[in-house]
């Protein structure tokens, strides 16, 4: 092919010569290197952004997990069976078949008062002691109100609100108790105490109707 003396061979030779000169390419070189540098900077920014987002997600997840653990720790609900509870429930004239589930009234390990590391923990500890050890629902209610007034969004606020509702039940302030239980029943705090709140609300409404029908 290379030595073939036809027009194609000649044309190839001329075409080769026409096209073999080449500019120095300095402008393209500068663009390539600048692009590589810019790409490197963009890659670093992307990596940094990804790291920041990942860190934010991790911290957020940890905070949520921590909050969940701290604020949602609660005693295992038990069927009301103590003489005190039976007496309280009997006084509400509930139907015999209703057996609501409400939190235990004795402190257990999970409900032990948190260490008094700060004012919030101290206030919570005082209300906790009044609620579970004092046997005085009015005093416990006042303590929960005190806590919630100072720390409405505190670490223990959901638990304090639920315990406050229990105090209202025990004090037979049923309308206020129902109002206090509604957020739990509607899932405002997720699954936390939702089932208990629903059962208590059902029991409260049934008990109210029962009283009305029995005491028109």
């Amino acid at each position, binding site marked *: 092919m290379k030595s073939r003396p036809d027009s*194609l061979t000649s044309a190839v030779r001329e*075409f080769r*010569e*026409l096209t073999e000169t*080449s500019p120095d*390419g300095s402008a393209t070189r500068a663009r*390539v290197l600048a*692009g590589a*540098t810019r790409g490197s900077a963009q890659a670093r920014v992307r990596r940094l952004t990804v790291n920041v987002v990942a860190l934010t997600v991790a911290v957020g997840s940890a905070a949520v997990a921590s909050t969940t653990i701290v604020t949602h720790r609660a005693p295992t609900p038990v069927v009301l069976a103590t003489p005190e509870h039976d007496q309280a429930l009997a006084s509400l004239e509930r139907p015999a078949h209703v057996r609501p589930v409400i939190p235990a009234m004795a402190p257990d390990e999970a409900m032990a008062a948190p260490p008094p590391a700060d004012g919030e923990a101290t206030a919570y500890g005082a209300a906790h002691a009044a609620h579970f050890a004092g046997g005085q629902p009015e005093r416990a209610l006042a303590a929960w109100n005190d806590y919630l007034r100072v720390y409405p969004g505190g670490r223990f606020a959901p638990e304090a609100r639920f315990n406050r509702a229990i105090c209202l039940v025990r004090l037979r302030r049923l309308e206020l108790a129902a109002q206090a239980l509604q957020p739990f029943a509607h899932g405002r705090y997720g699954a936390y105490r939702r089932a208990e709140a629903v059962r208590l609300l059902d029991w409260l409404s049934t008990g109210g109707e029962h009283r009305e029908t029995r005491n028109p």
Partner: protein
Amino acid sequence: MRPTTRAAATAPSALPEAALLDGLRNGDLNALAAAFDRWHGRVRVLARRLLAEEAAAEDVVQDVFTELPLAARRFDGRADLESFVLGIAVKRVRRHRRAAQRRRRALARLNVMELGGPDPERDVYRHQLGQRLAAALDHLPLPQRVAFVLCEVEEMTAAEAAIVADCPEATVRTRLFHARRRLRELLAPERGR
């Protein structure tokens, strides 16, 4: 790319191929500069021969060396690095081919040719012959054009062309056969002039 000094990035480099490859894979700007200095001329000439347009060839050069650091990670060592770079150029030519053809036709209508431009001092016959082949190459399918340019113009063996074109050697030979036959047909009317 790792940051580097401008002086280092612009200095001519004679890195061994293995070191060059490692540098490219690691995003070393010095290695990219060295690769550009070593192969940009070959890439540009090949692109010009495949596209017959200076501006499009320059775009191919930029594309090839922009892609090279990432592409180098795929390099398996079956061929030399230069063939690998030229193979990237062949792939990039496909992107620019149609645009180059459109521009060239427009220039042809204005009686201005891209390859070197009008030059009264140039041997008219030689210039026209080369230009006719450039125009005839436009009538070939790109794979045939690639085979013809690599084997006939770049004077590669079929085996070397197969590596660059990323196809079997027998395919290169077949494409070359058809390309030659077609080009002779296209250039034949010129013989009688």
